[in-house]
């Protein structure tokens, strides 16, 4: 970047480029352009894609490396090694096709899985030779737009050729034709000490969940119990006094124990002293004694356990207690702290540190950690989950392979030498099936890692573009939804800029399901070896060389890397500054974070995956490092976001490092101590909340409501929307981009895939049909296409081939006597399918399928064509007619013919349809009024929608009012206005535009009533507001019945609209009728109209007998027959609810005799 100032000293002149000396320094305009640049590189769902790419390219190799070798129990000379693994590109898992390449869209349409082969390089012994070759061991579903997907790096034209929408974010999988998302999972961070205090029990505990590669997780606690400190671990049956634990870890002298835990602080020593006494009281003085003490309490885990190598059973497995202790301490307790050659020093220091943190918290209540602090959270993404799944599947695969090989090798004599590759080829599809099953059901049940999680994946919601986008940024929490704690649900100050404060569902998942903010990035693992080396290079002293006195000396800071203590530094600030300099110079990954924790006198370096971070502009010496010239380069498309990173102009801050930074919100806020500058304040909102214009003027819950409703809005869902065959698809006929946009809208592409229309709204009362948020709609607007939408519904069927050789078939229309097709077959064409474009009336048949009557008969051996068939057609069930939009005939992976028929309905808004503005203000249409009855302004404009002003005072959606004003100004001046959060077009400017165009500055117009023709007595707030039509439409909900189907068991009317059910007169309604004394109405509602049943009962024994007519000749009498009394004499017929009859019979089945005591009504 050249500087032009040194050429001429024109800055010395009083007027430099038109600016005086006292003029304020021009701030970097259009700094927000960094955001689109960021999104261009990162994309909205880059977290998912990065994570998947990391798994596919790096992590999967680690998994294989960790489980590389198979040996045989039978033949000691045999071995098989997996030397490498790689994943190919998605292809068709079929033979005999022209091209193996498969597009995601084909997978969606054909209900197949978008997956790629997993290919391993194996080396194994064949006879005396060692053979090396590649083998496919299974298939893995590929995340769309990841490095392995055909869509990555394609231009819009190429995507269009593949029927793919360029605005689709990707990041999901296609499994058996359905789009599945693996939601981001929120967890507490691993390998970090969390100190907590239970105020009720007065207990302080430090806990640390250890997790290393290989997935063995264990949680270690250091807890206080009755003023003593203990070490607690799952594998040790009893709490171990901390002094004993430390002694067992090799800190033998009391002095050293004291120094490593309490240090030289007298207060701390006082708290800790008693623990040393305890150890002495228990007679534990030496390491050996301590190990014996611990060892006798270790839960010996044999059986399925892999460690110890024992399992031989009996006396051979029994080891001395101290060995058990050593084993447990080395591998189970704090398993993430490395123990090399039984050197427990590092682990001892870690336990001592935990103890010290507990002591500190006992001493000072404030020294506890916050579980809900975002810096203590890690987000688990698709890549990590798939890595676990793959490891599990791979291990199972290996053990299956091993037993298969053993089986062959066991056979004594073979003619040819054994080739393990052949065995591999007959191994079945365990891995592919495992992936498909896990992703399609969402159940991650991995016994090996004690993991049992359901609901990990969800079907990608394609209701609207925003719904799909919102789903990709969603974070699910591991917290239970039922627990009544507010902490995890509350808004955390540390989530600023990382998680969207508005976008969370209402109700039970409120605050637990979160969404990422616009510029959030989630890290993937970065190798920590080089980081440790760099730290030592920068002067960190190795922790193993330090004593307690040194560690806790004043001005000494402990250096942690990913939670593990590596050393000490006396100059933390200098160390951190140098470390950051290296990072900014790109000598370290940009996602490595470093920060000083002054409370703990510690420097933390983190490089683990799952941290949430975001970019910020670096400020040095009170000046932003991003300057005009940089932004100009960006504008000219000569620099990308990565260039900014490389130049050290911006950097990523994770939540912890953010605490070490002083971030200015605006450039004018920069002071000499400022370290960073926000790129743009509105990025603290997420993609969904970003649609709201002027959200900073709204009451906050309204923004949350809009975040929920924006996902239900009907609009465009993708450029390929008309090529998709989804189960249910809502599309708007004439979607419009909003008059009042936001920067976020432009960046996520909502202006290209909008879901709503700019309606001219008059805020006034009209007719009384607008109470309770109801809206009045203009009939002429509806005639002209306002709010018109289409509903597409998929109907799919398979034309099966059955194992017995028979098959389904499609048949011609059924003809009546005169040879004309029956009415309900009238759209069936020669191929047995309805013609595209035909109107389907309710009850019409559109797939005339026939199934052989003996399809399940496996003994059938006859001629398949001569089999009798029964009709199994698919008929149209909706209450209103639709049109056949598409008919697709294809076949699935297992060569069954698949037929999909898409039926379309076009709907115009009607009474009761739901609409909403972008401010959480929903309402149903209460009345449709002709244009002539609508009020009109001086220019003749009449509203599309009338909204009742009562919607405003209690909701306080001032943003909506400003949207109207800005929208009106925009329409008058012919420009789109911006309502970007914390910015956007100013009300003052909007008012000026209005006045310039001859309107009142306040946006209120003088209207004339369309009914009386006289002017209205009040001025009416009048202008365009973007309205969304929501998917809830009366047509899908309205339901009534006079008579209809009944349930088989109880003979009562069925329940629910889908079963054409009755409307229940519930308990509370029943109570009302009882209270009122309307007995006849009760009788009618509860019995006559429901499940009245005539039964013959015996007056003598009180039991129900055989009904008359059922067997009149046998009973003789007309009143039925009592099978108990063997008589027909005293039988009476009475009407009771069938449910009551059932109850009596059920009681009788339980040996309880209900007897009816009968009397005449008159008595």
């Amino acid at each position: 970047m050249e500087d032009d100032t040194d050429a001429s000293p024109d800055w010395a002149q009083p007027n430099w480029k038109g600016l005086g000396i006292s003029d304020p320094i021009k701030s970097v305009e259009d700094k927000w352009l960094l955001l689109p640049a960021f999104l261009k590189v990162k994309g909205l769902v880059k977290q998912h894609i990065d994570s998947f790419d990391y798994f596919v390219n790096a992590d999967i190799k680690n998994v294989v490396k960790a489980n590389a070798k198979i040996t045989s129990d039978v033949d000691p000379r045999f071995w098989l090694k997996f030397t490498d693994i790689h994943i190919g590109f998605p292809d068709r898992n079929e033979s005999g096709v022209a091209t193996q390449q498969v597009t995601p869209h084909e997978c969606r349409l054909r209900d197949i899985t978008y997956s790629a082969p997993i290919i391993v390089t194996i080396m194994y012994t064949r006879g005396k030779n060692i053979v090396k070759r590649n083998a496919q061991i299974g298939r893995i579903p590929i995340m769309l737009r990841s490095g392995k997907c055909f869509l990555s790096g394609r231009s819009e034209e190429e995507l269009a050729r593949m029927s793919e929408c360029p605005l689709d974010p990707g990041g999901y999988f296609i499994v058996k034709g359905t789009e599945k998302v693996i939601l981001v999972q929120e967890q507490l961070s691993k390998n970090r000490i969390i100190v907590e205090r239970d105020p009720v029990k007065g207990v302080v505990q430090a806990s640390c969940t250890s997790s290393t590669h290989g997935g063995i997780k264990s949680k270690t606690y250091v807890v206080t119990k009755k003023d003593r400190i203990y070490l607690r671990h799952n594998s040790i049956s009893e709490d171990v006094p901390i002094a004993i634990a430390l002694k067992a870890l090799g800190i033998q002298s009391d002095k050293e124990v004291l120094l490593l835990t309490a240090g030289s602080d007298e207060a701390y020593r006082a708290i800790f002293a008693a623990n040393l006494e305890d150890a002495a009281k228990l007679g534990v003085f030496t390491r050996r004694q301590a190990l014996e003490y611990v060892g006798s309490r270790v839960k010996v885990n044999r059986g399925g356990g892999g460690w110890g190598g024992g399992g031989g059973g009996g006396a051979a497995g029994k080891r001395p207690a101290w060995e058990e202790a050593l084993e447990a301490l080395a591998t189970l307790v704090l398993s993430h702290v490395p123990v090399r050659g039984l050197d427990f020093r590092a682990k001892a220091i870690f336990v001592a540190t935990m103890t010290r943190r507990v002591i500190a918290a006992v001493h000072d209540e404030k020294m506890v950690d916050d579980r809900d602090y975002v810096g203590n959270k890690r987000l688990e993404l698709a890549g990590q989950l798939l890595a676990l799944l793959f490891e599990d599947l791979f291990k199972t695969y290996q053990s299956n392979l091993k037993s298969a090989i053993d089986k062959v090798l066991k056979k004594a004599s073979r003619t040819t030498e054994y080739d393990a590759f052949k065995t591999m080829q007959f191994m079945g599809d365990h891995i592919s099936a495992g992936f498909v099953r896990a992703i399609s059901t969402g159940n991650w049940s991995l016994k090996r890692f004690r993991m049992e999680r359901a609901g990990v994946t969800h079907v990608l919601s394609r209701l609207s573009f925003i719904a799909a986008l919102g789903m990709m940024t969603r974070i699910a929490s591991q917290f239970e939804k039922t627990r009544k704690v507010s902490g995890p649900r509350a808004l955390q100050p540390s989530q600023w800029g990382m998680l969207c404060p508005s976008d969370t569902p209402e109700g039970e998942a409120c605050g637990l399901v979160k969404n990422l903010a616009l510029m959030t990035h989630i890290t993937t693992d970065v190798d920590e070896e080089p980081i440790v080396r760099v730290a030592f290079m920068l002067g960190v002293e190795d922790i193993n060389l330090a004593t307690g006195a040194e560690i806790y000396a004043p001005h000494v800071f402990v250096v942690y890397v990913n939670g593990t203590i590596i050393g000490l530094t006396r100059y933390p600030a200098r160390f951190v500054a140098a470390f950051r300099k290296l990072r900014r110079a790109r000598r370290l990954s940009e996602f490595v974070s470093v920060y000083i924790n002054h409370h703990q006198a510690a420097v933390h370096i983190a490089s683990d995956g799952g941290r949430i971070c975001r970019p910020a502009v670096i400020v040095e010496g009170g000046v932003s490092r991003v300057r005009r010239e940089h932004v100009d380069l960006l504008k000219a498309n000569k620099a990308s976001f990565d260039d900014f990173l490389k130049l050290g102009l911006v950097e990523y801050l994770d939540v912890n490092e953010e605490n070490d930074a002083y971030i200015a919100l605006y450039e004018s806020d920069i002071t000499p101590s400022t370290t960073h500058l926000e790129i743009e304040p509105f990025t603290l909102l997420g993609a969904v909340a970003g649609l709201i214009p002027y959200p900073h003027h709204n009451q906050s819950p309204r923004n949350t409501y809009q975040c929920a409703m924006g996902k239900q809005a009907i609009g465009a869902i993708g450029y390929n929307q008309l090529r998709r065959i989804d189960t249910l698809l809502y599309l708007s006929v004439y979607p419009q981009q909003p008059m009042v946009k936001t920067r976020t809208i432009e960046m996520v592409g909502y202006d290209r895939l909008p879901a709503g229309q700019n309606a001219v709204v008059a805020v006034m009362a009209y007719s009384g049909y607008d109470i309770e948020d109801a809206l009045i709609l203009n009939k002429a607007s509806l005639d002209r296409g306002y709010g018109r939408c289409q509903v597409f519904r998929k109907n799919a069927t398979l034309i099966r081939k059955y194992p017995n050789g028979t098959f389904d078939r499609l048949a011609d229309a059924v003809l009546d006597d005169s040879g004309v097709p029956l009415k309900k077959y009238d759209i069936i064409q020669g191929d047995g399918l309805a013609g595209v474009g035909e109107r389907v009336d309710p009850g019409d048949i559109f797939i005339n399928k026939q199934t052989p009557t003996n399809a399940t008969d496996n003994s059938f051996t006859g001629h398949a064509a001569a089999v009798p068939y029964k009709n199994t057609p698919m008929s149209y069930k909706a209450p209103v007619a639709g049109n056949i939009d598409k008919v697709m005939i294809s076949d699935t992976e297992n060569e069954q013919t698949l037929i999909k028929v898409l039926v379309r309905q076009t709907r115009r808004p009607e009474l009761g349809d739901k609409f909403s503005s972008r401010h959480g203000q929903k309402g149903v249409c209460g009345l449709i009024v002709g244009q002539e009855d609508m009020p009109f302004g001086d220019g003749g404009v009449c509203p599309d929608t009338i909204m009742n002003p009562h919607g405003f005072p209690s909701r306080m959606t001032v943003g909506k009012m400003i949207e109207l004003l800005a929208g009106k100004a925009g329409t008058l001046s012919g420009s789109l206005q911006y309502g970007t959060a914390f910015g956007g077009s100013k009300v003052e400017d909007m008012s000026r535009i209005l006045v310039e165009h001859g309107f009142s500055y306040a946006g209120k117009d003088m209207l004339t009533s369309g009914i009386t023709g006289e002017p209205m007595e009040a001025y009416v707030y009048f202008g365009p507001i973007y309205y969304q039509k929501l998917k809830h439409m009366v047509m899908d909900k309205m339901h009534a019945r006079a008579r209809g189907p009944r349930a088989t068991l109880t003979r009562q009317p069925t329940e629910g609209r889908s079963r054409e059910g009755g409307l229940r007169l519930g308990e509370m309604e029943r109570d009302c009728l009882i209270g009122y004394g309307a007995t006849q109405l009760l009788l009618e509602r509860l019995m006559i109209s429901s499940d009245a049943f005539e039964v013959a009962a015996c007056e003598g024994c009180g039991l129900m007998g055989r009904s008359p007519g059922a067997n009149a000749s046998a009973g003789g009498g007309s009143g039925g027959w009592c099978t108990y009394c063997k008589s027909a004499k005293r039988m009476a017929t009475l009407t009771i609810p069938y449910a009551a009859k059932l109850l009596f019979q059920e009681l009788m089945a339980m040996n309880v005799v209900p007897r009816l005591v009968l009397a005449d009504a008159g008595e």
Partner: protein
Amino acid sequence: MSIDPRRLVGVKAERVTNISSTDFPGHYPGEDHSWDAQKFKQNLKVQVQRVSNRSIDFDLVGVDASIANALRRILLAEVPTIAIEHVYVYDNTTVIQDEVLAHRMGLIPLDVDPDMMTTLLPGDDLTDRNTLVFKVDFECTRNPRPPPGATEPEDLYLNHELLSKHLSWHPEGEQKTYFGNHEPQPTNGDIVLAKLRPGQRVQMDLHAIKSVGKDHAKFSPVATASYRILPHISILKPIPKEHAKKFQQCFAPGVVDIDPTTHAVSINQKFVRNDTVTREVLRHPEFEGYVELSRVRDHFLFNIESESAYEPARLFKESIKVMKAKLATVRASVELLRNPTRSEDVVMGS
């Protein structure tokens, strides 16, 4: 020019006063306001201000709002026009679905004089008097010789846009002679109905019938018909000359005159009709008490934009025709009430 204050609607900062007329019998004690045809005739004034091909501006003075509004409502909803109502789709392979394309077809304004046709009532047979038939047969193909390097659809393809001018009228029965030179066609030939790509085709028959706007907005003959009432500004005391410029800017251009020499402020009565009544003047405290805004209740500035076969000037007459027919119905009904011996029912709208 002073106006009877009873004719004025008050325009205040936050409300509008005296919106209803008061010249009805019994409102003012001792004054006779009973309706008098002579007086009405004297007061009634219709003056055309501007006529163009598509719109007309005229003043209607001296009628009650109810009359003016009735005419407006009739213009919107009850003056009949011709529009496409039935669409028979033989082939449509465009991305626009059949119903949507049909809906778009319906909204095309047709240049057919509605007087030439009769209304198709439910149950009627289609005849050459009540139905017009249009046909579309349109197929997009590749341009066999596109200009080198072309990327735009208009260069690459032939027939890539289905426009309203591609509807062709097919005369039935006597229609050929009946319509003569004035062939039915869309008023605007350049309305885009669908965009096509090679291989896509639209083939449909369209039946146009006569109906009114209250049935469907496509039958409305106007883009809009509306009125506003004449603004009236009265200066109560002279505006201080330092505020003159600001006062002038509070109104539409030309409404306020400032004398170049004296800086005296006056209202230009000729251009006062151009004022949009922004109430900007009421916003500034320095003009408080200096000016009063109002509008003349019975002076309607009508604006009719025709979007149909009617010439704008004719539309208003048509609306009066419809109104007369309605009145005739009422009259006949009243007559029937008074004299119930007559047996025929009165048919609405005939």
